[in-house]
Every structure is written in structure tokens, then in C-alpha cells.
């Protein structure tokens, strides 16, 4: 993971929730804000369907009044006009207080839209002047059926991707069970061999897991990103024990069990993941971001130096998304297909040069020139891949 942006942001926002937002605020509000910048799956991606209803929201520093509170299911555009003296934040919450989406920092006098897709259910619209406190909340009720997804190719891509996620999480869990068994036995050599393979499934679908904000920091946080006083758990804790302090390995066994419990919790949550063609494409882009900022720099695996395993898994995960979306991209932008086919192939060929056994050579064996060559290939792929989401949505 790339904790500086991910769990770092989550921790930061938790702190924000406790201080700036006041004790009355719930954690869900804070968790959502990180979603707007990083985790495309967490906060709802911008809907692409036709707006079925536009609702004016009149806001002041003390009031928040939607023009209508009974709405049809579908894409709703909330149009907030800030008549107050302070900047305000507009939220749509589900009944369970999780965030559907938000619009930040709407200046006094300004008007801003928040477009969301709402299935039938109970929601709150909230204005939060100065991003302080609980906000001023209004109940709204949505009824009726969402329009059916028009494009069967999209439905198929999403279904296939769900199957892929399940498969990868199962694979990661099965290999982590073997890994943890070796840890418990104190078999350092075997545990070292099983460490990197256990992470492959996880690394392939990481952006989906990041949507469930609490899982990621539990299983994949690096020591350097640990908040003071927080407990360090997950793969990297075991990595350090194995490579730096193997004598302590048996004492770490309970963290192996914790890792398996957390992965199991992830597996249980997967059916609730909100997955669309856009969120898939954004996830692929995020996987390449992970490579560019964490793996190509050798920061992810500080002790084992197995970064190239993660690198390849991230690329595989992005390529899977691309392959599932290719029929749609082919129709809308065939040139992008040519470019992405070429760049994926080039990056995989380059990675192939460092294959060893079932995996890869240690990151520390790469020369600065080889790292630069990999970084160039990542940039060459990531730049056109960043256009994928707009193509599949448009």
C-alpha cells in the first residue's frame, strides 16, 4: 500500500473527526473525505447516467434546506447555494451514516453541484459550515427502481471483475495460511519463501480493499507510517521480524492470526463493494500509482526487498481491469487499445528480465539505471492508463 496517502490520510482524518469536527461527529464522515481524493471505490464515483431530478439546497451558516425531500431513485443533482458567510461542505449520507458523496469547501455566495446515484432508501443531506461539527442534517426518502444498466458489456465486465476479486482474495488467504503456519513453527526460511507469494492476490486488488478503509492499515501498513501509540499489525510487521529479528518470530505468531482474521473480514465485506466500470478503471490507475510511488522506489518492502513481486501483482491487477474493459474501449477509442497493449507488453517484458524462480530478484539487486528504465516504463503505461476511466464512462 501507499500509506502516506491512504491510511495516513485515514488516520489524519480520524484525528480531524475528533478535533475539528467535535466529538458528536461520527467516524464515517471523516473516512469519506479521504475517498474523494484517493480511493475511487470508497466514495461513489461520479455517476454517468442522466440526471432524473435536480434539487436546490439553500444553505446559510445555520440552515440547510433541500427544496424536495421525497425523490425518485436514480441520478440526483443537489445544487447548493451558499447564502452564508462561511464556506460550507455538502454531504449525502446513507441511513447507516456512511457517506455516499461530498462536495467540499463551497465558498460564500457560490453555487455547487453534487451529483449522486441513489437507490431507494433513507438518506440525509447535510451542510457543514466551516466543516465543523455534525452539520445541519435533513432527512430525504428515495423510492422506486434504478434504471437498468444499459450496456451488457459493462455488466459482464463488472461481474467478471467481482469473480476475479474473490479469486484473488481467496488465493491470498490460502497462501497466508501457509505463511502463518511457518511463522508459528518458527521456520524462518520457509516463512521467508512464503511471504511475498502470500501478498500477490492482495496487491492485485488492493484499491478495492482500500474502499473498506479499516482493512488496509490493519494488514498492509509500513512501520514508517505508523501513528505514534498505534499498534502495528499486518504483513510488514511479520516481514520485519523475519528479516531483521528472526529470533522474535514465535512471539509474533499472534499477528499472523490477526492478519488472517483481517483478511477474512475483508472477504466478508467484498459483496458490498460498489463496483462500476469507472471505479474499475480508476482502480487500475491507482495500482499504477502504487507502483510509481512505492514499488519502483523500493519503499514498500523495506526489509525483504521483494518489491518486484508487488510491482508485478499491481501491474497484473491493472491489466486484468483493462482486459475486461477492452471491448468497451475498443469501440470508443481504438487508439488507446493499441497504446495500452503496447505499453503493458513493454512493461511486462522489462519485468520479465528480473524474474527468478517463481518470483523476482531482490529490489536491491537493481542498478540505478535499471530502476530508471522501470520508472520510464511505468510512466509510459500510467499516463495513457489515466485516460481509461473517462473513456469507459463517456
Amino acid at each position, binding site marked *: 500500500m501507499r500509506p502516506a496517502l491512504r491510511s495516513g490520510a485515514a488516520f489524519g482524518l480520524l484525528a480531524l473527526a475528533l478535533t475539528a469536527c467535535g466529538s458528536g461527529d461520527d467516524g464515517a464522515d471523516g473516512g469519506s473525505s479521504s475517498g474523494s481524493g484517493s480511493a475511487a471505490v470508497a466514495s461513489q464515483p*461520479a455517476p454517468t447516467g442522466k440526471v432524473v431530478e435536480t434539487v436546490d439546497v439553500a444553505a446559510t451558516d445555520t440552515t440547510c434546506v433541500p427544496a424536495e425531500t421525497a425523490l425518485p431513485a436514480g441520478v440526483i443533482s443537489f445544487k447548493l447555494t451558499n447564502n452564508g458567510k462561511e464556506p460550507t461542505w455538502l454531504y449525502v449520507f446513507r441511513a447507516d451514516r456512511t457517506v455516499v458523496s461530498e462536495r467540499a469547501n463551497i465558498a460564500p455566495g457560490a453555487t455547487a453541484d453534487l451529483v449522486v446515484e441513489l437507490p431507494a432508501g433513507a438518506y440525509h443531506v447535510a451542510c457543514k459550515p466551516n466543516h465543523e461539527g455534525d452539520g445541519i442534517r435533513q432527512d430525504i426518502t428515495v423510492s422506486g427502481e434504478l434504471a437498468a444498466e444499459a450496456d451488457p458489456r459493462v455488466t459482464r465486465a463488472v461481474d467478471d471483475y467481482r469473480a476475479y476479486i474473490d479469486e484473488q482474495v481467496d488465493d491470498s488467504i490460502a497462501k497466508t495460511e501457509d505463511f502463518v503456519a511457518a511463522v508459528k513453527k518458527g521456520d524462518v526460511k520457509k516463512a521467508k519463501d512464503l511471504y511475498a507469494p502470500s501478498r500477490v492476490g492482495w496487491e492485485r486488488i488492493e484499491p478495492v480493499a482500500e474502499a473498506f478503509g479499516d482493512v488496509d492499515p490493519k494488514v498492509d501498513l509500513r512501520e514508517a507510517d505508523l501513528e505514534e501509540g498505534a499498534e502495528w499489525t499486518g504483513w510488514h510487521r511479520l516481514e520485519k521480524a523475519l528479516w531483521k529479528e528472526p529470533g522474535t518470530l514465535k512471539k509474533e505468531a499472534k499477528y499472523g492470526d490477526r492478519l488472517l482474521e483481517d483478511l477474512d473480514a475483508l472477504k466478508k465485506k467484498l459483496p458490498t463493494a460498489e463496483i462500476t466500470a469507472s471505479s474499475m478503471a480508476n482502480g487500475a490507475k491507482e495500482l499504477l500509482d502504487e507502483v510509481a510511488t512505492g514499488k519502483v522506489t523500493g519503499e514498500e518492502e523495506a526489509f525483504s526487498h521483494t518489491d518486484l513481486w508487488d510491482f508485478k501483482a499491481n501491474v497484473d491487477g491493472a491489466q486484468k481491469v483493462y482486459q475486461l474493459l477492452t471491448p468497451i474501449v475498443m469501440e470508443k477509442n481504438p487508439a488507446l487499445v493499441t497504446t495500452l497493449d503496447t505499453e503493458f507488453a513493454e512493461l511486462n517484458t522489462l519485468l520479465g528480465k528480473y524474474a527468478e524462480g517463481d518470483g523476482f530478484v531482490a529490489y536491491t539487486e537493481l542498478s540505478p539505471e535499471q530502476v530508471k528504465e522501470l520508472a*520510464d516504463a511505468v510512466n509510459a503505461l500510467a499516463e495513457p492508463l*489515466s*485516460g481509461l476511466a473517462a473513456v469507459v464512462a*463517456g
Partner: protein
Amino acid sequence: MADFSRRGVLAGAGLAVGAGAAAGAGLMRLTETETETVRAAAPGGPIPFHGPHQAGIATPVQDRLHFAAFDLGTDAPAEAAELLRRWTAAAVRMTAGQEVGGGATGAELAPPDDTGEALELPASRLTLTVGFGPSFFEKLRLPAPDRLRELPRFPADKLDPARSGGDICVQACADDPQVAVHAVRNLARIAFGTASVRWSQLGFGKTSSTTPQAQTPRNLMGFKDGTRNIAGTDRAALDAHVWVGREGPEWLRGGSYLVARRIRMHIETWDRTSLKEQEDIFGRTKREGAPYGAAREHDPVRLDRLPADAHVRLAHPDSLGGATILRRGYSFTDGSDGLGRLDAGLFFLAYQRDPEKGFIPIQRALAARDPLNEYIQHVGSGIWACPGGVPAGSFWGEALFS
């Protein structure tokens, strides 16, 4: 063109190119001279991208620099040409103060084409100047111009390969550093997949002037150096010493050879040097910048009045059989070096018609004898052939690929 406006200048530049092509060089020169006047008169405004020469050479020197050297990741000339075509399209827009491609706020779900940090900023006299290094021609198996050869090693060079060379260079000059950085950043982004930045250098203050009336800006040693620079309006001197003529391949005519040197200054030891020694080393006074034996900065240099090994004397054309260059260097500070010393100096940029009659003899003389060498070290180096001006509808170096 007294009634200056962005639109007016652009229209005027287009006219200059069109008229020149139709009616011959005489008319083109007349029109260009007019444009030159506008350029000097309009700080913050746009400088025409198209013309008989690339902008950013004879153009009055802007305040800030972002220089970048790129390496190609391809050996296919068609891919390099496509990159230069896309770069030119972006450069035309950026030098006019416009956003790249579909702009900084396009489709909501796509990353914007333009990175956005130059929004609302004026064109700021941005110029983008491109050159091709010896490795460019090797990689693409294209015939290199005769005079484009790797520079010889000079005594006391301590060149860092990571700050030297590069297949393609881009010199971005502007009065606003954000505009220059924005330009290089967006070109680098366009290049992903074809070329990547090998090294880059920011320059925070100009050290040369191509405007004859202007005072020469001081370098970080506190001195005015290179005061007898070629003026951007001195057509005869530019033709004689800067622009490549018929001796060069067609694509290079009207272009120039660029030499860049990253010259680290040992600022701290220099600052402990007496005023007299500092002045003796340069051969000019510190406050006025007058050469020894003269009263004013721009007074003629009388070589016999200078110490035999003074910097000014060694580098003077009269000492070197007429070797003359157009200087366009910038001061840089890249933080500190971990020993409490500034990592600072001069990013020296010189344009010339022939390096053998420009930088090379000058640096040979300086490297051998200049007492300034005790306080400086050349740590980066590069040479590039900068093609001639880009006509409207064409792209950088197009003639090279046809």
C-alpha cells in the same frame, strides 16, 4: 504596433512569416525588427513562437530558467518526430499564454491535459528552445551536423554524467518561474513513453543581457561578467557568430549550437577573498563593473590594462582570435551540500555558430590559466544543435526527418 495586445502580436508574427516567405528575406527582416521592438517593450506579454529563428536565443533575456535534458526511449525517427510535433503544438499554446490541449479543466472523469499551475498567469515572455545532442543522432541513426561533437575534456572538469548530456534539450525561459516550470512539466508529461527527463536545472536569476543598453546582471560572485555580450538586435554579429549559415545542413540554418555548463561556485571561499583579489581575478571593479583602466561597465576593454591572467582578458575575443559567443546563463542554488555550503553557481548557456570558434577555444584558455578556477568547478556539461526557426504549421526539426 504601439497598440500592444496579445492578439495583435500573434497576428503580427503570422504576417511576418507569411510575408517573409512570399517576398524574400529583406521584408522578413524589416518585419522581424518591428517584432523585436515589441518584444523588448512588453514584459509579461507573449513572444512569438514562430519566426526565422527559434525564440529564446536572441530574445531579450528573461528573468528565470527551467532547463531540461531528455533521453529518448526509442530509436525510431518516426516516434521522435511525433514527439516533436506534439511538443510544438503544446509550445505554441503555452508561449501564447494558453492552456495545453483540452485545457486545465476538461472532461470531469479524465485527468486534465494541462496541469493548471499557470492558469491566470500571463505568457510572461515564455520561450521554449529545443536542441539535439550527439546521442540523438546516434540513437536515431540520422546524420549529425559536422560541428556537433562531444566537447573535449577540459582540465579540472569534474563532470557528473547524471547532470550531463541528453538526447534533446529544452530551454524554458520566462519572467515568472512558475510559467517556466509549468512548460517543462507539461512537455515532460507529453513525452512519457517516448522520452524521459535525464536531468534538469532551475535558474533563478539571469546573469546576461542581450539588450545593449541594459546593465549586466551580477553573478553569484557579485560581479558583472560577459558584459560585452552579443546584442539581440545586432543582426551582423548574430549572423557572424550565432546563427548557423550555409555551412550547416538545411534544418540547422538559422539555428545555433548550444553549450551548457553547470558551474559550481565555491561561494564560501570566494567570500573570504579580499576585494582586491576578487577584482584582480575578474579584471574589473566590483561596484561599477568597469574593466580595469576604464570608468564604466560598457567602456571598451583595453587588454594591456588588465592583469595577464584576468578572467576578462582570457575570455576576450581579442585574446582568442575573435572567438565570440552569445551568453544566456542563469544563477542557480540547489539547496545546500550537507557540509553547510550552498550548492550554487552559474548555469552557463552559450549559443554560437561553431563551437570550435566559440566555447571551445574560450574554455581551453580559461581552463588552463583562469585564476577563477580556484573558486569554481565545472560539474555538468552538454552540447546540442538547435534547429532554425519553426514556420507556422511545421514542428521542431521537421526538415531533419524528411
